[in-house]
């Protein structure tokens, strides 16, 4: 079989690239080594974690907030098995959706491990072995959870996000190594279900790549939920002693401290995954962190071989991978697309949610940019009080001279959705005043964006 484009890996980068290639008239093949399409995002990432986050949030509300709303439950019970089962159902429906999209777009799907024979021939090793001839290749093999030296993941008590999405019991004490997005989201799930959660973080803040205000605000909310944070701790070892795990670390004074719990979630980031691809044989270069090196067109040093998503540099986000999938497909079709990497939003699905786009305040300070800050708390909104979701704020950073919006950072209910307004505004280079002069429906959480924009324009928020 001879294809115009073959894509290895069917995560959000790979399958979106396949659809766009098919739309552009390329004969397209998609290779996936697992039984279901969708990659990490759909199977063991974004989608299942959101399913558990939503379920556990309902449980948490039922246990703590319903009474205030005038709803009394006498014997609230957790059915974790059902919660996990529902999550599996969500994943299945979503994955089936990808199957449908592949059929609809007449994309040939090959199940098996894809590896290069040469740059135009891919061997797919599944139940059978077959060779695919192809003109162009897009590598979209994604990433895997990484770990620290001295810590062996045993997948029983010392686990990664994958195992944390299919627990048989709620941990009594969950020790989380790493205060990034994945650890905080999964920690939230089990904290809401009653677990004691300890986060051990190497730096001095959680979600360190996002604006500092968000980290501080989120810490406050998570502490209320029962999180304990240990900052500036360097984890040394994690030992599974059968029924419990002991984690040792060095604190900022250089003293050794130890933590004991029944599970330890290692969420120290993810590493690019290229195992089995045999890219060495065709000479594709990797950088010092194991990522595939690409040029401005996401083409590797081997002509006709491209790479997208977690396996290349940049934020490891599904929506970034999707943009890159579309980008490469259009490049192959001779178009001239562009990705504005500065405007790929970051999102965290804790409750309150966290989202940000553009420059953080720390980055602006470092760059010496003169900027103005406009901030507005969610608690001042009628909508927030009505729903009892009063934690959070919206912060807009604007250029001190031109008033152009340089960064928007938010924490609050559904801000992962709300951030889209900021992306649109910034893509069109809106000023803070522009946003403040657009009508925002009342009562909504979005009003916080307008008010923050008013505050940034000339410190003239209306409801503060």
């Amino acid at each position, binding site marked *: 079989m001879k294809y115009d484009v073959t894509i290895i890996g069917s995560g959000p980068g790979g399958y979106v690239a396949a659809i766009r290639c098919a739309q552009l008239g390329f004969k397209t093949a998609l290779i996936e080594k697992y039984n279901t399409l969708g990659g990490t995002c759909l199977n063991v990432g974004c989608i299942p974690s959101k399913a558990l986050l939503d379920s556990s949030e309902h449980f948490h509300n039922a246990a703590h907030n319903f009474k205030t709303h005038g709803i009394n439950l006498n014997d609230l019970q957790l059915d974790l098995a059902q919660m996990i089962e529902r999550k599996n159902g969500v994943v299945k429906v979503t994955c089936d959706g990808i199957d449908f999209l592949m059929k609809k777009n007449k994309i040939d799907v090959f199940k098996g491990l894809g590896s290069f024979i040469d740059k135009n021939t891919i061997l797919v090793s599944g139940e059978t072995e077959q060779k695919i001839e192809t003109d162009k290749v897009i590598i979209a093999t994604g990433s895997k959870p990484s770990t620290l030296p001295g810590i062996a993941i045993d997948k029983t008590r010392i686990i990664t996000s994958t195992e944390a999405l299919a627990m048989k019991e709620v941990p009594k004490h969950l020790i989380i190594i790493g205060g990034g997005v994945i650890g905080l989201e999964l920690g939230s799930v089990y904290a809401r279900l009653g677990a004691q959660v300890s986060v051990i973080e190497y730096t001095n803040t959680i979600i360190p790549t996002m604006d500092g205000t968000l980290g501080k605000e989120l810490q406050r909310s998570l502490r209320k939920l029962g999180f304990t944070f240990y900052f500036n701790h360097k984890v040394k070892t994690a030992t599974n002693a059968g029924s419990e795990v002991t984690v040792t670390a060095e604190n900022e004074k250089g003293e050794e401290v130890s933590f004991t719990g029944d599970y330890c979630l290692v969420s120290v980031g993810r590493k690019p995954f290229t195992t089995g691809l045999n890219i060495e044989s065709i000479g594709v270069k990797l950088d010092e962190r194991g990522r595939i090196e690409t040029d401005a067109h996401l083409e590797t040093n081997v002509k006709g071989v491209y790479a997208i998503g977690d396996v290349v540099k940049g934020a490891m986000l599904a929506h970034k991978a999707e943009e890159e999938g579309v980008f490469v497909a259009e490049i192959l079709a001779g*178009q*001239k*697309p*562009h990705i*504005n990497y500065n405007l790929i939003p970051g999102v965290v699905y804790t409750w309150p949610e966290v989202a940000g786009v553009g420059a953080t305040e720390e980055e602006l300070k470092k760059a010496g940019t003169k900027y103005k800050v406009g901030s507005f708390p969610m608690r001042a909104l009628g909508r927030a009080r009505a729903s009892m979701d009063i934690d959070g704020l919206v912060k807009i950073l604007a*250029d001190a001279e*031109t008033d*152009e919006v340089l960064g928007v950072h938010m924490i609050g209910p559904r801000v992962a959705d709300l951030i889209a307004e900021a992306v649109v505004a910034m*893509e*069109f*280079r809106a*000023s803070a*005043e*522009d946003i403040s*002069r657009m009508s925002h429906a009342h009562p909504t959480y979005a009003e916080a964006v307008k008010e923050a924009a008013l505050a940034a324009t000339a410190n003239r928020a209306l409801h503060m």
Partner: protein
Amino acid sequence: MLKINVPTVGESISEVTIARWNKKTGDYVEMDELLCELESDKATFELNAEASGVLTTHGNEGDTIKVGDLIAEINTEAARPEGMAKPEAKAVSTKPADAPSTKKADEPAKTSYATGSAGPAAQKILAEKGISPAQVVGSGKDGRILKSDAVKAELKTTQNEQKSRVDRAEKMTSLRKTVSKRLLAAKNETAMLTTFNEALQQFPAVNAYLNGEEIIYHDYCDISIAVSAPKGLVVPVIRNAESMSLAEVESEVMRLAGKARDNKLSIEEMTGGTFTITNGGVFGSMLSTPIINPPQSAILGMHNIVERAVVQNGQIVIRPIMYVALSYDHRIIDGRESVGFLVKVKQCLENPALLLTQGTDLNKLLLGL
């Protein structure tokens, strides 16, 4: 009372059909408001109010009327109905009396940090056209380049502006006039002769117009291409074909033909050709006499290629043969020029390398002669 007549919408369109009235008799219309949609056999276009006032319509939806005929009248003296503020006046009147005297909002659009910056879609479109945002005037807020600006940038690229768009008008000589008159007497409108046999710039008359007593020569070649479209034959125009490569011409033909089939050609894209090519061969025609598309002076008809018995070196051999026909206005073009033109076309078709080397013999070029 302002009379609105059906405007001239393109050459060879003499009548239009009223597709839809957007306003009716008695309506108060604002200047530039859409009055109705008109349809010719080739395209749909809109008629807007030339002034504000009360409208009287002439003709019903579905009626066919001639270009230049009265279609509507606007009584510009009629009073604006109450509650219908003048658009400009409205903006002023809604301004609160105690509005902060500060600044901005009410000032006209001006330049800012965002002037000339293109949004995501506009940016991609411009990149693909190879046009720098600096060459485009943005119509968005504070001069932002909108998608529509980027799309339009195609029609008036600076490249095209730099290309020759010069017309030369030359008085007809008295001999020409006589030839012209005689031929006109013989044939009523244009004098058509068809030469059978097989380079427009080498024969400028073929690319010229006759305008009264003047011959308008064009230094550019805007080639009309006859395309069969769902609504009938349309002739989109390839501008400045003389400065395009073969591949560029090909892609432009594909683009225009695609738009023609989707009925998306604008009037602008169909007017102003200086010469027409039609290919009856795709429908199986072996030989035909194409009709000139006035005011052009000539049209080239291509036909299908069939195998024919011909004599070469004293032998009867089978060779692919295509007939090529040039219909031309004998008032401008003499037989010598028309035959010369066809011979040039034949040479180019028989030896495509000539097209790629701009007419220089390939062997000479390669040998550096």
